[in-house]
Every structure is written in structure tokens, then in C-alpha cells.
């Protein structure tokens, strides 16, 4: 098995569609990390994931997975990665046992014992047809399949969307266990930032096909803040410090990109910590001078 520093390395990737371009994006997911990939619907998350899985060809750039080229070494690396989509891609007529029979031959490292352990843990019926499963059960089955062949990298596209908080919490807990040995990595795209806030080590923000921000979650959360002030105070804030300004009837909320420095510079204001949701929201509106 090869040694690698980054489970995913994306460098200058461009993918053009009619009406949308994934524009020269770059980010890395270090080995052992869980990366939250955040963006609103249509921002380019799914296109990025499809590009790195070679579901679609890219126009330019380089993608490496587990230290290997995503096209040249495709056959080898797909034995070592797992994918979870937002919709279950298995046929309705199959049951849990059928899926084990299918995956047993597809993955050299498939482990029936691990699979059945997850099935029992998720309390999934073994003989019931998948078509009769609820959305939560379908997602659990997909995750059980993804985690039963010792994949080093788990790529998830909106996997927790549409699930109730109890199921989401249960699934996030499983991911934490999966990451515990430092040998596994996760790229998890979602627009539910609360999930990523709980488990992600790193986050990457994407909007309109461009990466806005990428880095360690704690650093990003620590560096950003919401400065609350009166509307006429906005002119006192250095434009370099501002991500965007949200105005309302009571005043203005300014997202600042260096909270500590802002605290020193604007002592007569209140600067609250920002959540990932806030950061996404303010960055999405970065082109507007003011928004409400």
C-alpha cells in the first residue's frame, strides 16, 4: 500500500458545463481528516465529487486520491474508496443479503462480519426488500456497504440531507468511530452545516463553482466574527476587514475575517463568534455591498 499525505488533492480543476463552470478549484483533504464541503444548492459540490470520482471528465487540472491519479490508477484506488450518495443507488428488489453477495465479489477486502455488524447495529431487516425501506434505512444501508470493505477514503454527497436529527446523529457517531485510527479520511458534502460543525476537522466553502475558503474548521471559526453596529458605523470599518454587510431595521451586522484584529480596531462594537452557517451566508453575499 502506498504512502500518502493527502487523501484527496485537487489542483486547479476546471469543469465546464453549459451555464456553470467549476472554476479552477484547489483544496486538499489530509489523511485522517474529515473535510466538510459546504455550499448552497448548485454551488458545485456534486460536480466536484463527480469529477474526483471520475464520473465525469474534467477540462483541466489534477486530482489525486490516496496519492494516486484519479484516472490512471482508477482500478486500484476504487478498491480503496467508498461512496455514499444522497439517494440510494441500489435496486428496490434486492435485500440486505443480496447486497452482501454482490459486494463480496466486487471488493477484495469486503468483510461480511463487519457488514452484518452494521446491519444489526442499524436494526435493518435482512430479508425485507430495499424498496420497502424508509429514507433513513436506505441511507444506513448505503453507509453499512460503504464501511464494510475497509475503505481508506469515504466520499459522501449530501448523505445526511433529508434525514431526521436522531438518524443523522447516529450516522455522525459512526463516522467518528471510522476516523478514530487516523488511517481513514472523509470528504462530506452538505449544506447542513450543523452536522459539519459537529464532526469536521476542516471545511471548504464553495460558491458558484469557486472555492471561497478552505482550512481547519476551528481556525476558520476563530478568525471570523460578526460585528454588530449601527448602520452609520459601517463607514468606519476598513473594507479589507469586511466579508459582507447585512443590514436590518436595527443596524448592521458585518462579517469580519480577522476577529482578533477587529476586536482591537473596533473597540466600541460587539463582535460575536460566527457559525459555519453565518460564514457561508456572508461569503455567498460577498459581492453585494450590503444585503438584508
Amino acid at each position: 500500500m502506498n504512502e500518502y499525505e493527502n487523501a484527496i488533492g485537487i489542483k486547479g480543476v476546471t469543469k465546464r458545463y453549459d451555464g456553470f463552470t467549476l472554476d479552477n478549484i484547489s483544496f486538499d483533504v489530509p489523511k485522517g481528516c474529515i473535510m466538510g464541503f459546504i455550499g448552497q444548492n448548485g454551488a458545485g459540490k456534486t460536480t466536484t465529487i463527480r469529477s474526483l470520482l471520475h464520473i465525469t471528465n474534467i477540462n483541466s487540472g489534477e486530482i489525486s486520491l490516496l496519492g494516486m491519479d484519479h484516472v490512471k490508477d482508477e482500478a486500484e484506488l476504487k478498491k480503496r474508496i467508498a461512496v455514499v450518495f444522497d439517494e440510494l443507488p441500489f435496486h428496490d428488489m434486492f435485500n440486505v443479503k443480496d447486497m452482501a453477495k454482490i459486494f463480496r465479489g466486487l471488493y477484495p477486502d469486503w468483510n461480511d462480519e463487519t457488514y452484518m455488524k452494521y446491519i444489526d447495529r442499524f436494526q435493518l431487516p435482512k430479508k425485507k426488500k430495499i424498496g420497502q425501506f424508509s429514507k433513513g434505512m436506505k441511507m444506513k444501508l448505503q453507509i453499512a456497504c460503504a464501511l464494510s470493505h475497509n475503505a481508506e477514503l469515504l466520499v459522501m454527497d449530501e448523505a445526511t440531507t433529508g434525514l431526521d436529527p436522531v438518524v443523522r446523529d447516529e450516522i455522525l457517531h459512526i463516522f467518528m468511530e471510522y476516523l478514530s485510527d487516523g488511517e481513514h479520511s472523509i470528504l462530506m458534502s452538505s449544506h447542513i452545516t450543523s452536522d459539519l460543525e459537529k464532526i469536521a476537522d476542516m471545511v471548504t466553502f464553495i460558491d458558484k463553482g469557486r472555492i471561497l475558503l478552505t482550512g481547519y474548521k476551528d481556525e476558520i471559526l476563530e478568525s471570523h466574527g460578526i460585528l454588530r453596529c449601527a448602520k452609520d458605523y459601517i463607514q468606519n470599518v476598513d473594507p479589507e476587514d469586511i466579508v459582507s454587510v447585512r443590514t436590518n431595521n436595527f443596524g448592521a451586522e458585518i462579517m469580519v475575517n480577522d476577529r482578533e484584529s477587529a476586536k482591537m480596531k473596533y473597540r466600541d462594537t460587539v463582535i460575536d463568534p460566527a457559525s459555519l452557517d453565518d460564514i457561508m451566508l456572508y461569503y455567498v453575499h460577498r459581492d453585494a455591498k450590503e444585503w438584508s
Partner: protein
Amino acid sequence: MKLYRSLVYREWRLSRGHYILMTILFLLTETVFILPVLVEKQSILDEPSEDIKTIKLSIAVIALFLAAIGGFIAGMNNRVHKADIASGWKRYSYALPPTAKQRAASDLMMKLLMMAFFAALVLIYAAASKAIIGGKIIGSTISAYLIISSIALVFDTIYCGILLMANSKNELKKYGIIASAAGVALFFILTHFPIKIGSGKKISIADRLFNIIDTMNKGYFIMITSAVFVLVCALYYIVMWRSYERREA
């Protein structure tokens, strides 16, 4: 081998209902034709030699008819690709270890397994008929089976080649219609395209096939049909391989 077993198992589970239904229909048809031969075995053998010749010819034609049905069922589309696109498995399969070549090979394996199965059913009738009333029947049955299964496989190759351009449920309808239209067009061309022969009399390829059937028992003809069958299988494999290699736009 484990990988192919899994891929073939998956396809078999998805198409099992289709093939079981087709097998039942085929066996019913075969029974309808074989029963009179079994029941009237002694009286047939007591007929004057001229009548036996006619009966042998009828039985040979029935064998060709069964070979045509069996070959068509084995070569026709089993709707697995359509189900794969609709369920999202096609997109998901790009993230799985099997390569395009391995997937194409497993598709071909499934086809060949079904072809071998229906060939066995067809040959049971031919062998039973030969055992009861004699005559040269096996060679023509094999030839007919190979020709019809090759034609069915050509239809399926075109159909799948077009259908696999669809990447999602939304595109399935569009490509499904185009693929079906291509199949109908090919059928129309094969059955209505006039061919000039001899005095300039026009006949369809279908009519011409009936003339060819007379020579079907000859060894060289079986060799030719076998070679055509192998070529069509190779074509099917290449089209499937290229289709699986193709990525979404």
C-alpha cells in the same frame, strides 16, 4: 472470478423474473410441438416412406422455429441496463472497482449463459425428434439458433449502445425512445430491404433466409454462422465496453 460471479449474480437476480417467464413460455411452445411426435411416434414410423419424408421436413421446420424463438429470447434485451440507469446504479458503478472491460465481459457472460441454456432447450427437441424419426436436424437447428441469436444480439447491441448514453432517470425516456426507434428501423431494413437476385425479382432478406435454410445442415454453413456469432459477440463486448468507458458530460 469472484468479481464476475458477483456481477453475473447481480444481473441474474435483476433479470431472473424475465428469464423464468420466457423459459416457461418457451417450454410450453416446445411441449406443444414435441407432444404430437411422442404420442404419434409408432403411427409416424408406420407411414409410407414418402409421408415420413414430409413429416421429417415438418419437424425440421419446427426445430428451426423453436431455434428462432430460443435464439431471440436469449439474445434480446433483459432490461437490466434500463433498471440500472433508473435506480442510479449506473452512476454509482463508476465508483466501484470493476473496470469497463470487466463489466462488459460480465454482460457478455450473462448473455452467453442464457444462450447456452436456451440452446440446450432447443437441442433437446432436435435430439428427441432425431432419436424418434431420424433425419438430419441438429446442424440446421444449430445454424438457425446461431443466426437468430446473432440478429437478436445485434438489436440488443444497438439498443444498449444508445440507451447507455442516458445517465439518469430523466434522460432514460429520451434515450429509451431513440434506442427503440433504432431497433424498429433495423427490423424494418432487415425485413423490407429489397435485394435484386437473378432475373431482377425483388425479395426480402427474410425470404432469402428461407432459401438459405436448406443449406443449413452443411458443415461449412455451421462454421460460417459460428464465426458470425463470435463476431457479433465481440461487437457486443466492444460496444458495452465503450459505453461503460464513456463518462457523463
